[in-house]
């Protein structure tokens, strides 16, 4: 199987190389905007999730804008390939050799995490793919008012004596960032595993069955802020945001809410160095500041990659982009080119020690074996 595919890839690589020469020649002759003309083509924007998730919302947000920004205004259609928590679609994309830009692939934190953890289902390799867009998302953890009152400023030591319950999608999913953060603060949090989406977790919080929760920014703005206004919830901390140099800073969407890093520094039980911190940071970066990325296959030539990077930049440069994206995506960096590459490197290259720490912790605390 592998051998056959490799041969195929080599053979197609040769074809692609020839095509590249031809394409470059065409571009050179047409000489226009330095982009590959896509007119009349249909670009498939494949996401490894179902029609109902956040990734679908994100892909459908970008598809029409991308269509306008690409030279020749090709049709961009979103295709769904759900299965096995996104690894099925990613495994499929790994096998694709469509190098003329008519296939792009959108991943999410749920695709990154099993890859980082060495999940046996993962047959894909991020190093093979070329990133053209990285979209950030933030997250906010919040508490019921009576629990929030036990915090001493930023110091979370007062929460250590309580039993917390929250609804979680699974130990190996995006939620591990929250589980690890709370654990590092010395809190006892029992995740109730098996909910289908973060919205269900919020509902458990509203029903009083859960007494801690977190939501990604768009959901927090939409559904938790009204709870905060009614005095039913109090924000505890954000996971923060990543600046261009790769440091964790306050989330620009929530400048008044402290980051986990600040809370951790103020809490004696928590340390912002060492294995746990490094592991948390690595998984936070994979899960949030570069949560959703758009990739071209390995063989796509540099000109096609440049065309897509340019198109995404043009989308971001639109006068109405800030307004449009604030509603769907929140106020987060939409990174292209070097920034995207940096985000991808941070998101997909965890130190072995961090990985080993998480694998061991998942096994010890939740009995989840990844072997």
């Amino acid at each position, binding site marked *: 199987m592998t051998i056959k595919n490799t041969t195929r890839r080599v053979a197609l690589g040769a074809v692609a190389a020839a095509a590249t020469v031809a394409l470059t020649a065409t571009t050179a002759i047409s000489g226009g905007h330095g982009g590959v003309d896509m007119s009349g083509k249909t670009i498939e924007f494949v996401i490894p999730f179902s029609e109902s998730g956040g990734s679908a919302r994100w892909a459908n947000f970008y598809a029409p804008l991308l269509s306008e920004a690409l030279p020749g205004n090709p049709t961009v259609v979103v295709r769904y390939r759900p299965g096995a928590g996104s690894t099925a679609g990613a495994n499929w994309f790994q096998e694709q050799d469509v190098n003329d830009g008519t296939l792009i692939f959108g991943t999410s934190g749920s695709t990154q995490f099993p890859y980082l953890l060495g999940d046996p289902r993962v047959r894909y390799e991020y190093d093979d793919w070329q990133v053209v867009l990285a979209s950030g998302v933030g997250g906010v953890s919040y508490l019921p008012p009576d629990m929030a009152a036990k915090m001493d400023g930023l110091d979370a030591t007062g929460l250590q004596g309580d039993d917390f319950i929250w*609804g979680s999608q699974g130990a190996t999913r995006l939620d591990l960032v929250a589980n690890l953060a709370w654990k590092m603060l010395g809190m006892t949090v029992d995740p109730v595993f098996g909910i289908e989406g973060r919205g269900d977790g919020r509902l458990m919080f509203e029903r009083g069955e859960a007494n801690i929760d977190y939501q990604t920014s768009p959901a927090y703005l939409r559904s938790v802020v009204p709870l905060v206004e009614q005095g039913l919830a109090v924000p505890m901390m954000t996971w923060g945001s990543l600046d261009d140099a790769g440091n964790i800073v306050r989330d620009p969407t929530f400048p008044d809410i402290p980051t986990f890093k600040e809370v951790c520094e103020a809490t004696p039980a928590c340390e912002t160095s060492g294995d746990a911190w490094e592991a948390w940071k690595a998984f936070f970066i994979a899960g949030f500041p570069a949560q959703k990325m758009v990739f071209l296959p390995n063989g796509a030539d540099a000109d096609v990659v440049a065309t897509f990077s340019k198109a995404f930049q043009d989308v971001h440069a639109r006068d109405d982009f800030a307004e449009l994206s604030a*509603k769907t995506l929140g106020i987060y960096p939409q990174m292209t080119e070097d920034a995207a590459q940096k985000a991808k490197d941070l998101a997909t290259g965890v130190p072995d020690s961090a990985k080993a720490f998480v694998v061991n912790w998942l096994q010890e605390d939740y009995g989840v*074996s990844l072997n």
Partner: protein
Amino acid sequence: MEIFATALPALGEALVLIFQPQQIMYLVLGVLLGLSVGVFPGLGGIAGLSLVLPFIFGMDPVSGLALMVGLIAVVPTSDTFASVLLGIPGSTASQATVLDGFPLSKKGEAARALSAAFISSLFGGLLGAIVLTFFLLIARPLILAFGLPEMLMITVLGLSMVAILAGRIPLKGVAAAGLGLLFGTIGESDASGSLRMASYDIPYLVDGLKLVIVGLGIFAVPEIVALLRQDRAISKSGGLGSGWLKGIADWFANLWLSIRSAIIGVIVGVIPGLGGSVVDWITYGFTVQSAKDKSQFGKGDIRGVIGPESSNNAKEGGGLVPTLIFGIPGSGSMAVFLGGIALLGYDPGPHMVRHNLDITYTIVWSLALANVIGAGLCILLSGQIARLTTIRFTLVAPFLFTIIAFAAFQSSQTLADLAALLAIGVIGIMLRRFEWSRPAFLIGFVLSSQAESFANQAVQIATVRFKRDFWNGMEYIGSPIVIAILLLTILSVYIGIKQGKQILGNSTPPVGDKRAPFLFLLAVTGYTAVAIWDSAQISVLRDKIFPITVGLVTLVSCGVLIMRMMTAPASDPVFADLEAGDEDGAAPHGLWGTLAWFGFLLGLASLVGFIIALTIFFIAFLRMRAGVSWMQTGILTTAAVGLMCFLGGVLGRDFPPGLLQEYVDLPWPLT
């Protein structure tokens, strides 16, 4: 009164907003799209919405909402066509409709069944819209009262319907439901991701079996094969008995039943997390339990159509309540709908209900109008479409094979979907042949994952509560709502056990050889034992406790059945075997030979891809099995291939590729 003061002006404003030529036009467009998509089994609201979503961005909000709501509202109406006429559950909402709707078609009363179903849908849809209007403003505390223990109890109430649908031998029903529950646990567990009866080497199983495929395999495949063996029309008399006016009269005569069923539909729809798939079974169960004369249920009782159909449209109105109040989708199509609303610039949630009540109410009006237009159109068409049941079935069957293969292929878009369909189809054929309750199996399958999740989660929370103090825990698991549903469940099981046998009548089933029924029982027992053993290997307790518990109950039922088979004479009903009966046994064509045609289509598809295989299959089938002229063969084959290409093209779907496509690049649709 305050509610009326808030609601009525907004309702009036919404009415003005929606009654504009352009908005009404979009609503009608949505209705037409919804009807066209809903007619195909396996395609529903999600597929339809995906079609229109690219155009929503930038539309004026009222038109966009009218388009989407019009589409969603009529899917549970139009899927009735497949359920009643062909015995294929059109979507999860019409599974129970098959039980009595299809026998009515066989009796030649398809038009009557259809019009009764549509008028019930219309009524349920309107009731749902009315409830939505006022409930929207006060439902929040009520919905928050439904925690995990309450939802678990409703799921158990759904499972208790097995009692009345178990068939002649209650233990067989229990074993069938247990088998369904076990099939529902296949794959990665929801809680911690342990694998059950699956392996990473077979990625398809890791994801679990899809409801569409199980529904088609259990109900559609056995019925199509059984009918095909007869080589006649679906309607036994070959004609249409009573017309569509009769159906409307039937509905009016059962108005009270329709009201009750619609109310059940709204209530179950309102509770987020339950999903719509239980509602038709619960209403069907209640319909049977509350009827005086039960002898005709399962054989073509019109009440068995009116009950579920009144509830499944009402459920859509109910389902919009949590969707709009909490921004939490109750189903896949609701999730896409939420995305669509966001594209229009609105965020569903408390904010929208409070500040954009007029826009919110245009959703209510669209829902009501769409039901009237959609059901009205369907009623007018039902007399004509019902003629399908008078066509020689051998000419209809290849189209059905094509459509269910296409529907199955939608779930993961791999050939494994087709293999799974065939495998589940064989199980369905066996369940039918040996009179194991297929509804019981499907109820088990449908409720498996939520029964496990709710039970696990409720236990986890209760444990922490009990750790705090005993009464804190009791308060959690013993709420008045839990106790009330528990009493209902006990009542339901009691009535079910007492009267369930009557559903299939008291006539003696055909019995033949002891060997075949016994072998099938042994196979079920064997699978159960292996599933228990497999689950026992899992290290995480919360991932294995449910399959092991369910497995043990199933195993005990099987054990008792084995003992009964060992001691009973061959004439005992436990040995029911339809192959020994008049209808199946005397059929002009064999069971396996007929199924082999379907297997041929799927096998060929794995070699040369779906479209080429379809062409070859049609020509071969029509010439060799149906024996029609080359001329007719050509027309029908072109029609089938054209239909598939049209559907695939419009929905943007590829077809299953075969081995050939690995080596040769072919243009669409041959890819």
